[in-house]
């Protein structure tokens, strides 16, 4: 993560951003609304997990809980109480942040598998809460959520909604990337790698974990609000354990140690979900197989594979442009692809 961006990476990023920005112009409304909107909000909730896992070593299943808290509260306030959608969204995201602080404070004492399981418990608590409480529509959920006027209708004219989601995604990406390079982010990475040594150096390990978790909460919360706006509804079913595992799947497929992997995984999942279901009745089986193969073969996910391939091409193409000076230098083990593998 500390490696400075090379020109190649910047160029690739610009190309990707350009292609993504052209989606509403080149593709159908169905594609923009179904694939575009879904993969963007799924990417945002997945990136909150990728950040926690990559930077803090905390694989959390509770991100859908925070997603649900923000989405439910925003939907409730705007549909039943008639609030302005922006104000409702703000309150929802703030609540999710507070809940994230509580969850983080409770879970930060645990590590690894225990952390995974205590966050799974949080996810279940939140799910059962929303499924049981009539205020939030119980199993029915809340229907007829309206996004702010200025974003248009997400179903018939998703263009503005799409650009808004894209802007939020870029903002979240830049923000999390910035945070991971600050002193706090580096300390968090230190806590991930060796908590005992960090404690000996005088860092408060538990506090760092808690703050890291709290920091990822508004990201997951924002995804919840955006999902409620995109789908014009939210229900307990959208934060069930299956969805928590789905978010984990998307993050793992994309790659858990690079932030952009979250969106890549979300896009791949959404594409398969939209188009493959027509070909096979056993979609989940194939999803599981892909998940399994990726976990077994490439811990860095699809992004890891891509960056490995990129590094290989750069090293082996004889006529490749010269900027590969750092890559050609043999001293550091694998300079370009080192981010791809754990």
């Amino acid at each position, binding site marked *: 993560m500390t490696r400075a961006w090379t020109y190649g990476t910047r160029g690739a990023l610009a190309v990707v951003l350009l292609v993504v920005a052209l989606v509403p112009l080149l593709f159908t409304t169905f594609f923009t609304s179904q694939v575009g909107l879904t993969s963007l909000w799924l990417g945002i909730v997945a990136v909150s997990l990728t950040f926690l896992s990559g930077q803090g070593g905390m694989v959390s299943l509770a991100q859908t809980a925070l997603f649900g808290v923000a989405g439910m509260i925003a939907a409730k306030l705007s549909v039943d109480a008639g609030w302005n959608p922006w104000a409702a969204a703000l309150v929802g995201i703030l609540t999710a942040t507070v809940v994230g602080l509580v969850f983080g404070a409770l879970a930060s004492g645990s590590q690894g598998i225990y952390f995974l399981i205590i966050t799974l418990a949080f996810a279940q608590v939140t799910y059962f*809460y929303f499924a*049981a409480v009539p205020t939030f529509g119980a199993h029915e959920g809340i229907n007829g959520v309206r996004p702010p006027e200025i974003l248009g209708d997400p179903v018939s004219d998703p263009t503005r909604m799409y650009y808004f989601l894209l802007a939020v995604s870029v903002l979240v990406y830049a923000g999390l990337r910035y945070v991971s390079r600050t002193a706090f982010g580096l300390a968090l990475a230190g806590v991930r790698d060796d908590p005992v040594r960090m404690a000996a150096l005088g860092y408060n390990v538990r506090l760092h974990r808690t703050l890291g978790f709290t920091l990822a909460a508004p990201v997951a919360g924002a995804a919840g609000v955006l999902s409620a706006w995109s789908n014009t509804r939210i229900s307990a079913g959208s934060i069930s354990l299956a969805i928590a595992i789905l978010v984990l799947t998307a993050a793992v497929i994309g790659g858990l140690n690079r932030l952009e992997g979250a969106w890549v995984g979300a896009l791949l999942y959404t594409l398969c979900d939209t188009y493959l279901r027509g070909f096979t009745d056993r979609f989940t089986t194939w999803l599981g197989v892909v998940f399994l193969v990726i976990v077994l073969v490439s811990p860095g996910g699809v992004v890891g594979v891509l960056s490995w391939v990129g590094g290989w091409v750069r090293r082996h193409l004889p006529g490749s442009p010269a900027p590969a000076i750092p890559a050609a230098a043999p001293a550091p083990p694998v300079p370009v692809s080192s981010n791809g593998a754990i």
Partner: protein
Amino acid sequence: MASQTAAARRSVPRLRVPVAPAVAVLIGAAGLLGVLWQAFEKGFGSEGNVPTFILITLNGLTLAGLYFISASGLTLIFGLLRVTNLAHGALFLLGGYLALTLVQDAGVNWWLAALVAMVGAGVVGLVMHQLFLRWNQGQDLRQALITIAVSLILADQMQAWFGATPTAIAPPEFLAQPLPLGVYDLAYPTFRLTMLAAALVVGLVFWLVYKRTRVGMVVRAGVDDTQMTSALGVNVQKVFAIAFFVGSALAGLGGVFAGTSLSLAPGQDQSFLVSALVVVIVGGMGSLGGAALGALLLGLVDQYSSAYLPPEYSNLSALLTFVLLAVILAVRPTGLFGKIR
């Protein structure tokens, strides 16, 4: 002089009240008092609430038995191999469906079907271990992700093969009649009591094997120090494989019991996995006594809360077990009897 006062100070036990555990215990005691009050407020006659209380307690105990059977397999695998087998729920459901098919379609005797289902679930677990988990030893999180992937595949395949309609296995004939309890003219399903007895047997066998036999000694040594045990000439990989087989087979047995006393349906793999995890985590992963205590706590809290919470809150009873888990983990991050490693 100074040293004397220091020694004197040391000899006086300092009073330290662990606040969080104390609060947790107080809340638990208050809950228990509330339950007892509701159960006995109308006296002990047959007119009062006592018969209901007995039935609810038996429900809680037998449910705890069911939880213990599958949680013991989970905790065995974790304690020995450090693998968090998140496919445990899928193996559980697989055992149930295998027995269902054998009893319902092939007309096989219930006991034989249960045995075959155990072996079936055990073999699937063993294959998963040998194919995917064995060469990722020591990578906890990666192994957990692998088992999640396997559970996705297994659950979807089971839905394809066995359908989505909930079905129950017919219990063996002589256990199908309710058993008179001898008090208040109550009768209770014999099969559910068998479930409790089976849990006790599983616990006893586990304990005897673990503490009194050579195999148990090797397993304990393997838990404490795998490399040293291996260096002493024990085939640790074989022990691991057997443990995975037994743990998965116990998941299958749990599925057979659950399928007979409750029913089988898609989605139960996840809900049961979560229950088993809660049981194991509450007790402390890898501790059999912890699993027993966890199962007891979970079964009783589950049944009492759904029966005795005020009606307007009774739909929150599912929440309570997870609150229990979160509180216990926040106070003791490795569970009640868990060791820090």
